[in-house]
């Protein structure tokens, strides 16, 4: 009986996946974006697509230090869904198509349920959500490259990073096969990063190596002041990069286009 109760407790282990991204290591190569698109079956963008209507679940932004030219430094910031613990997108969804999974801490987007009102896109302070403006179309033969673990999305629904849920499923299968309860996996972006700047870990587990990274003084998060409790952490030893995290539009949002 006691063993049974213990068994039950074991199977209900709760994860809180989060990532730490080292901005000083990131070279801005964009391998994470490519790996992400390939993993998640993103269709090639049609010719008419614009910056606003394209889909990049993971996006590397270039930011520049606000200083005169010779001294000006550049950094690259990979941005994706921050998997907030208090996600504004979930609160605004009229269709209950967004759900914070209590077992994984991942903010689930149910594209099958989404009807495309895009409230969540307006609510997300990180611009991590994308709308499918066009039918996904693959050139003949390219459908062979599709990942069977991820269903393609249709036109008219919103999608976002779900921390490579297909890979999570595979890790779950592996763990069930081994009879273990330890579900560890690498999202496509973390696996592809040549600088190993992206690390994933279980924030609920005090022994996870990610806790050491989070405890470092150079670790920060974007827009903490909004209280959405993001689970994505960033690291930089440069103060000007860290200051970006709390920057708002009134105090210069010009770091994307000033050349």
């Amino acid at each position, binding site marked *: 009986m006691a063993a049974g109760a213990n068994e039950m407790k074991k199977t209900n282990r709760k994860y809180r996946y989060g990532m730490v991204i080292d901005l000083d290591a990131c070279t801005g190569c964009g391998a994470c974006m490519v790996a992400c698109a390939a993993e998640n079956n993103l269709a090639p963008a049609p010719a008419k697509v614009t910056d606003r209507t394209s889909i990049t679940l993971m996006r590397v932004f270039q930011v520049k230090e606000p200083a005169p030219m010779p001294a000006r430094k550049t950094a690259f910031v990979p941005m994706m869904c921050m998997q907030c613990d208090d996600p504004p997108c979930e609160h605004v969804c009229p269709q209950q198509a967004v759900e914070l*999974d209590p077992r994984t801490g991942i903010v689930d987007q149910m594209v099958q349920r989404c009807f495309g009102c895009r409230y969540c896109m307006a609510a997300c302070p990180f611009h991590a959500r994308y709308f499918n403006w066009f039918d996904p179309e693959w050139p003949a033969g390219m459908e062979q490259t599709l990942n069977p*673990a991820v*269903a393609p999305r249709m036109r008219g629904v919103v999608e976002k990073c779900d921390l490579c*849920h297909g890979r999570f499923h*595979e890790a779950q*299968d*592996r763990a*069930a*096969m081994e009879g273990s309860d330890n579900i560890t996996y690498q999202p496509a972006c973390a696996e592809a990063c040549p600088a190993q700047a992206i690390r994933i870990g279980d924030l609920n587990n005090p022994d996870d190596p990610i806790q050491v990274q989070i405890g470092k003084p150079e670790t920060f998060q974007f827009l903490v002041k909004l209280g959405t409790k993001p689970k994505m952490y960033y690291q930089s030893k440069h103060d000007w990069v860290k200051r970006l995290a709390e920057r708002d539009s009134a105090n210069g949002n010009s770091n994307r286009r000033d050349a």
Partner: protein
Amino acid sequence: MRSAIFFLTGVAMMLLGGWVGLPKVLYKQQAQPLDFSHKAHVVKAEMDCTGCHDFREDGSFAGVPKLDNCAGCHAEPVGTTANEKKLVEAHVTPEKEIGWLVYSKQPINTRFSHAIHVKKAELKCERCHGEHGKTETLRPYEYNVVSGYSRDIWGRSVSRLRRASHEGMKMDDCMDCHKEKGAVAGCLGCHR
């Protein structure tokens, strides 16, 4: 009064026509490429379900076995049936896969983990697949002409009122069992 009787008779006839006729219009049949006796393999050859429908090392489920699996025993006919002869001559020797039609095939946005249900939750195959492992012939595959899904997803019974516990593989059927066992999976637990 008479008009009411006529009206109700009309309604009854339409309903009856719908219940009887609709499944015939809605579902199309397709014969399996080869007949297969589960009974001969499970009872006579004393094999286990997992002898052919096995897990891979990484925990993924192989599902309906590939030709290699059959060829392991049937490189040459071991019995005398016409079906086996066909298997050896039309498939094993020319190395041509058998295009089985899978009764329990789910839509692509559905994720079902056999590893979690069979290894971890210790469900029996029969819980969802019924007595399929004891059948002597493969019944024709039926699919819904509108959705293209296998008829087994909805279940044989069109009204779904009187059906066996394993019948139907709709999300509702999954949820009934999940609620019963108190197993919470979340949306992306079973969708992808």
